[in-house]
């Protein structure tokens, strides 16, 4: 396939859009199942088109900009966020041949872009000039900085073990041994992924009952959709990295690679949905204590462990 077709159709923009509508649908269905409800049902077969309908509803909404807000930045931030997260997905190989770009420092790029997201979200709260947005913006910076260090340390532990940053090479080198050795890193990585993408129980910046909707409070319609979508894509990208580093990416018997990739991804998502349905949100100071006193030291110890294993293997 031509490169631009790849970027546009598969595994690019159109493909991603469909994947997100499905993930969102799956989330609502799984949550409904835990709630003992039916969930989306009427729009399309089994309610499959409900999320699409919701997106079109958001597109029709009025473009509201708060009077005190910085108009240029307020309109620009959602697109900046969107472009940044879409860049992350470009590096991810969904199968042997379906990727947009492949470089020798894929992992580094994705992690750097994830780190770059926190100021964007902070600015989203800052330019809204609203109290709840402002508090949400401060919280998102606090939370992402505390979560990124364990994320980097656990992801780089995998890079140390495989000796490369290229995703496709990592997938080729992965095996049962690598899965077992990197299991602690995988757990730390998943927790850190939940923290930096504000998923429950770490959804402190968007805690509805405390700060309304955090930095998203003043956004509406299309802007809101783009921002929420970029948060979803961020989690998707981080989970994809997790699948590649720790679960063997597109490797698997019989079925084609892309199917295996999405089965593994769906398992991770299922885990987050069930956590969301059963775990109350924790407090900011509790999260900071957890991140700096538990998760970061564990990530450091894990890095030491991986380096020792690497010494003995090679």
């Amino acid at each position: 396939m031509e490169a631009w077709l790849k970027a546009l159709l598969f595994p690019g923009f159109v493909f991603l859009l469909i994947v997100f509508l499905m993930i969102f649908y799956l989330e609502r269905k799984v949550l409904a199942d835990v709630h003992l409800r039916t969930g989306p049902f009427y729009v399309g077969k089994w309610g499959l088109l409900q999320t699409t309908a919701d997106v079109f509803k958001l597109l029709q909404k009025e473009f509201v900009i708060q009077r005190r807000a910085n108009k240029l930045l307020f309109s620009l931030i959602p697109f900046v966020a969107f472009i940044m997260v879409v860049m992350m997905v470009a590096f991810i190989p969904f199968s042997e041949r379906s990727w947009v770009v492949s470089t020798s420092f894929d992992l580094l790029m994705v992690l750097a872009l994830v780190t770059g997201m926190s100021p964007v979200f902070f600015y989203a709260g800052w330019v809204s000039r609203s109290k709840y947005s402002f508090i949400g913006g401060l919280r998102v910076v606090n939370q992402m900085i505390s979560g990124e260090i364990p994320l980097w340390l656990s992801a780089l532990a995998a890079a140390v073990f495989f000796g490369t940053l290229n995703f496709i090479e990592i997938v080729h080198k992965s095996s049962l041994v690598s899965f077992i050795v990197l299991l602690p890193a995988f757990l730390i990585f998943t927790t850190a992924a939940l923290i930096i993408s504000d998923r429950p129980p770490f959804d402190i910046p968007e805690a509805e009952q405390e700060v309304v909707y955090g930095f998203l409070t003043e956004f509406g319609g299309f802007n809101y959709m783009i921002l929420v979508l970029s948060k979803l894509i961020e989690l998707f990208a981080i989970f994809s990295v997790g699948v590649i580093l720790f679960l063997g990416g597109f490797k698997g018997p019989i079925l084609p690679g892309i199917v295996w990739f999405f089965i593994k991804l769906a398992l991770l998502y299922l885990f987050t949905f069930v956590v969301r349905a059963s775990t109350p949100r924790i407090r900011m100071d509790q999260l900071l204590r957890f991140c700096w006193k538990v998760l970061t030291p564990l990530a450091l110890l894990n890095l030491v462990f991986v380096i020792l294993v690497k010494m003995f293997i090679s």
Partner: protein
Amino acid sequence: MGNSIAASGYTFVLEERKEVSGEDLGLLQEKLLQLNWGVQHPASGPMRLKVWVDGDEVVKVDPDIGYVLRLLEKLVEYRTWINAIVNVERACFMDDFGTMAGYSIAAEKIAGVEVPKKADYVRTILCEAGRIVSHLLGLGGIVGVLGVHTPTQWALIAREKFLDAFEVYSGQRIATSSIVPGGVRFEPTGKFIEKMVTAVDFLEKEFIPRYGEVFIDNPTLKIRTVGIGKVSKEKAVEIGLAGPALRASGVPSDVRKDYPYAAYGELDFKVVTREEGDAYARYLVLWEEIQESAKIIRQAIEGLPEGDYRTKFPVKVPPGEAYVNVEWARGCFGFHLISDGGTGPYRLKMRAPSFANVWALPEIMKNVKLADVPVIFASLYMCHGDIDR
């Protein structure tokens, strides 16, 4: 300083626009940020809490109520003795039987009407079902403010079964208008009893095991609620807490036990108390009271006597006064009813438990984090309709 107010030992800087070299610094310049936690807020309900925060710490809260004032007490004066129940039951939609029972008992006291035994038992069944319905929403609410909506959904399923029973009984699911001075309005048919037993069965066999497994010893829930909004026994009496919040502080105050009304004197139940006095204790009190109430309903259904369910209530009631307390879902609800010999009440004053709990908020919410505000608010178990009346 022109833009600051000194009140009750604090200095509050009001929101202002200060420009530094042409740039509006906005919110960063403010030491204390005043948040309007309500009226339009996901967890506040129709009331406003002015919350002053310093970073993440709450400095002071100031409740601002009156958004759902419906003048129920005044409206009662234009109704006849029987009709007044429709205003009384609207104090709060979640448990309307308690308020109707209290008003009816007060009216019967003035009129000197003796209620048949069967009516007493039906009132007990309905009041306890109302308590369960209300407590289910309360349980869901406390976990709901922590971002998990599963308990609410599960509780609503259990609640529906009780509403089905109410529907069979009175034709209405929520505003049933079923307890009137002189007894109850409808014959408790076999179908109603059957539905009520089904509801209690569902509650005890399905809801309680399922809910108890996930959301009672939940470690994350404990992290958030244990030790939060602590009220000692003395403090709880001093600030006049009511209902489950008072019992969670270790005060075994329950009108059902202390001054039995309806059929409570003949039934066996215990008053649930906890010593800790924090948000988690209040949560557990609600949880255990649901189970006690289910037991009371079973006993009352077993002991349901034969006979009339209603006696004639006079159109004109002789002049007099009565004050009656009932244990409503949210605490002790007082009715001061005055008759001047007319066809309707001359004056009704309702003493609301939620109103008492609102004014405990500024006391309890000192030196807590912003994230604790909704937890404490939900755990005090207030109803907005009841606060404003």
